[in-house]
């Protein structure tokens, strides 16, 4: 029930451990960003007032995250939330829209993704607003949050909730059903769960038999300096890609099609460098939010499946896709989705540093080859936000300096968005162009 101390989920704790590592090694936080590119008619003051109201209704939005008395599972301290500042809405100076060309992505958004938010003081999310020509030419809006507060689907549910409150479709204090605030049971750490967690550990150690090499190389202390590029396919191209994904990977499981393309895109860069990557090891988030829950806004509801492909396995797209399918099938059959949850539940009590250290030691200093996510349709059915039309929208999660590269794909109103997040200096301009060209070619089959 909703008490003053709400426990983090196991996945939250995993991300909290990760946040600590990023803080120590890269001077940043593990954040994620949702970007809305809006047309004219957006009023930042409406957003500011709405965020203030909603933060009063949902104290988790500014609840300090801490371990009670320094031990035990971390919690959101709802009792102290009222003393924390309201989530900030920062309106940046109006930018000049380039005549006859698309608006560039705001530098302010990149800077925010490299920022540090202090979760222990309840600083869990921020909004950045960049008006173009005073808003007459549109507005770009970024919601940036510590990743343990929301997952990608939760962030979309949060945006939808804000808009419903704005339109009066949802009343004050009326949170979406299954909001995720009070329905996390304490972790069961019995023998069965312990065996599952050990199975997960064995699986991860098995991946280390031929460790990966990321484009950035093993982690060293480098300040995080992320940027991202967005490529949006036309409706015709998107339809062609979706048809290929459906035919080759299945109607409900197209993510492996996109993952195969992302692996080959990174392989192309290694090949151009003349470097053997050894293998590709890539985690794929698995959405575990409660079925039928309207909202499940807060906290992360995911497990992860890890894929391992020897470098030579990326040479043929179809063979690679079949390999990924078989690995996913075997992993689900072996119960690795549930085992991953069990392992992350144990992370509620483990010191964050120990957890991250064990992961990195297995892969010779690497975390994985790159980050990947396929989030499917982006805010389907939501045509406007606070009265301004949504022209486009996508996710841009942070990626640590190593692996230094992440590919995130989603579809907004029939157009596929390819977001490439990268650490400055990890890929040259020519390498980024090559990566995107290979990705496009494999997606379109051209």
């Amino acid at each position, binding site marked *: 029930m909703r008490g003053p101390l709400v426990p983090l989920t196991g996945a939250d704790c995993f991300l909290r451990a990760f946040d600590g590592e990023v803080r120590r090694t890269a001077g940043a936080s593990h954040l994620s960003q949702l970007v809305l590119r809006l047309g004219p008619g957006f009023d930042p003051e409406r957003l500011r007032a709405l965020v203030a109201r909603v933060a009063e209704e949902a104290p988790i939005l500014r609840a300090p995250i801490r371990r009670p008395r320094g031990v035990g599972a971390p919690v959101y301290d709802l009792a102290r939330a009222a003393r924390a500042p309201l989530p900030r809405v920062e309106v940046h100076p109006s930018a000049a829209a380039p005549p006859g060309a698309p608006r560039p992505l705001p530098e302010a958004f990149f800077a925010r993704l490299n920022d540090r938010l202090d979760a222990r003081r309840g600083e869990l999310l921020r909004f950045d607003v960049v008006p173009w020509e005073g808003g007459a030419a549109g507005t770009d809006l970024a919601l940036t949050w510590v990743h343990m507060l929301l997952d990608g689907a939760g962030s979309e549910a949060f945006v939808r909730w804000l808009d419903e409150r704005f339109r009066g479709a949802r009343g004050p204090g009326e949170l979406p059903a299954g909001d995720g605030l009070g329905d996390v049971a304490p972790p069961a750490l019995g023998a069965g769960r312990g065996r599952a967690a050990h199975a997960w550990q064995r699986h991860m150690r098995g991946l280390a038999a031929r460790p990966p090499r990321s484009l950035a190389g093993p982690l060293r202390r480098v300040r995080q300096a992320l940027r991202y590029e967005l490529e949006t396919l036309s409706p015709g191209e998107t339809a062609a890609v979706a048809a290929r994904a*459906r*035919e*080759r*990977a*299945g*109607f*409900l*499981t197209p*993510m492996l099609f996109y993952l195969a393309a992302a692996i080959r895109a990174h392989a192309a860069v290694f090949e151009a460098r003349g470097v053997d990557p050894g293998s590709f090891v890539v985690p794929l988030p*698995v*959405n*575990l939010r409660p*079925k*039928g829950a309207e909202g499940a806004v807060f906290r992360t509801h995911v497990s992860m499946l890890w894929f391992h492909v020897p470098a030579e396995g990326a040479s043929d797209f179809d063979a690679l896709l079949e390999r990924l*399918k078989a690995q*996913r*099938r075997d992993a*689900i*059959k072996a119960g690795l*989705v549930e085992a991953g949850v069990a392992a992350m539940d144990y992370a509620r009590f483990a010191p964050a540093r120990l957890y991250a250290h064990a992961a990195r030691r297995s892969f010779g200093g690497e975390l994985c080859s790159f980050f990947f996510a396929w989030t499917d349709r982006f805010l389907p059915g939501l045509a406007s936000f606070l009265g301004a039309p949504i022209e486009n929208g996508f996710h841009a999660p942070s990626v640590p300096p190593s692996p230094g590269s992440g590919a995130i794909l989603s579809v907004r109103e029939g157009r596929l968005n390819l977001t490439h997040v990268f650490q400055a200096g990890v890929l040259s301009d020519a390498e980024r162009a090559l990566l995107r060209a290979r990705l496009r070619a494999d997606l379109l089959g051209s």
Partner: protein
Amino acid sequence: MTAWSREALAQRIVEILREDILDVDERFTATSSLVDAGLDSLAVTQLLLALEESTGIWVDESLLTPENLASAEALAACVVDLAS
């Protein structure tokens, strides 16, 4: 596969989904939409694994078109056709 008719397999699919995979009750039948009932990427693979255990046949995900996932009956027909 010899022991499975389309009707029997459709009923087996309903049982698997009701008992182990989806949060559905007795109103979920062999003609109900699988996707509307909550079948997602993880659930569909769990269903295919359970079907493989029952029938010995693995249905590749690429065969799972919206039409084949329209209902348990449609999926059963797909599996039976694959076996024959």
